């Protein structure tokens, strides 16, 4: 929601000043400030809690080691940039592993959870009565390509504005705009195929459909 404003902006300022002044302990404070948001982002990106925890810890480690390279601006956005890059690398590695071992059974649980699922089945008239809309949205997000998913999450869940997302993903404003839009459209398509009707807030028989 847009209401998820950046909490503790002045706290961040003080801690960052201390950190850049050589106080390594200030990093702990900053990490604690953003730990939950970072994990939520990693989890939504990677869809596996254990892998998400590892990714956040990796990101903290990278951030701490490179703390003197922080050039100002939003430290939170800087952390999210490191984390998003890390998550996208993890996803890329998982895809590569999955692609190269199509015949071998995967013994790595992470692979099963992280590997991008194949394209969803073509539109099926299915009743979705009984499924929580939330888990439907989660399933929808899982089908969105990683970079679009990252952009949508940064916008709708984390509340960053387009400029910040551009810096976090190291892309241009136009790319951010496009990715956010396509990500949302993908979720919308997924939901509609499974019976979601815009405006009713709940699933209905897909056969009713929407006049397009």
């Amino acid at each position: 929601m847009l209401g998820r404003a950046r909490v503790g902006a002045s706290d961040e300022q003080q801690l960052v000043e201390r950190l850049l002044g050589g106080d390594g302990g200030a990093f702990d404070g900053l990490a604690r400030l953003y730990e939950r948001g970072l994990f939520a982002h990693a989890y939504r990106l990677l869809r596996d809690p254990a892998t998400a925890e590892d990714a956040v810890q990796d990101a903290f480690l990278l951030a701490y080691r490179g703390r003197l390279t922080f050039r100002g601006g939003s430290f939170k956005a800087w952390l999210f940039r490191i984390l998003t890059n890390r998550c996208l690398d993890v996803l890329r590695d998982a895809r590569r592993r999955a692609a190269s071992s199509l015949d071998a059974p995967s013994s790595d649980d992470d692979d099963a959870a992280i590997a991008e699922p194949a394209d969803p089945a073509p539109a099926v008239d299915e009743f979705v009565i009984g499924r929580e809309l939330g888990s439907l949205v989660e399933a929808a997000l899982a089908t969105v390509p990683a970079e679009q998913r990252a952009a949508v999450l940064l916008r709708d869940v984390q509340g960053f504005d387009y400029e910040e997302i551009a810096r976090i993903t190291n892309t241009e404003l136009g790319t951010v705009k496009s990715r956010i839009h396509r990500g949302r459209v993908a979720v919308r398509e997924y939901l509609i195929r499974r019976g979601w009707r815009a405006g009713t807030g709940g699933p209905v028989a897909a056969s009713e459909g929407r006049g397009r």
Partner: protein
Amino acid sequence: MNERRHLEAELSAYLDGALDARERVEAETHLQACALCRARLEDLRQVSALIAALPEPAPRRSLVPHARVPPWLVPARWASSVAAAAFGLVFVFSSVQVPLAQPASAPAGRLESGAAQERDRQPPAAPAPSPPAPDAQKRSTARLATPSPGAAFFSEARPTAVARGLGPYDVSLTTNERQPPLTVPPLAWLVAAIASAAVALGTHRAIRRVRGS
């Protein structure tokens, strides 16, 4: 030519307030006239709200990296604090003058017993360190402080120094004792105290830097 191009990514940007003024006006103009784009905008608004409303999962454990203090740092802080206090006390005691006229009778090496005899011979002094004694004594002891430790060792005017010239920690802290300056000049104790305090402060700040406040 009336080319009605529907809004695409502009819809999301409009929703997020990411259009500049000109683009926003254009979008609003189009939306007023286009029911399809209005419906799509509403869809996007709801999708955005659904995503935002997803529950925020919590990690099962703390992910914050815990920096560790070098193991020698904490005892170093304690030791230097104690040393600073000890040096400070020695300095205070060594610079407090006590009337001392008896010649040296204690042989070298005698510590507690010599000090006990001194206590008997000397008038009892106030427990708390008093302001410096008469200047004359101060000056005389100051003069005696400058010669080499060896000379002071045999000095008649500093009897207890003979018994006591053995090391910085060799200080009797009984309240009745007001020893004349030791073989080490009092200023040296002050310097040592300040140096130890500096070390204590430095280690303390190093620890705080790692552990945070």
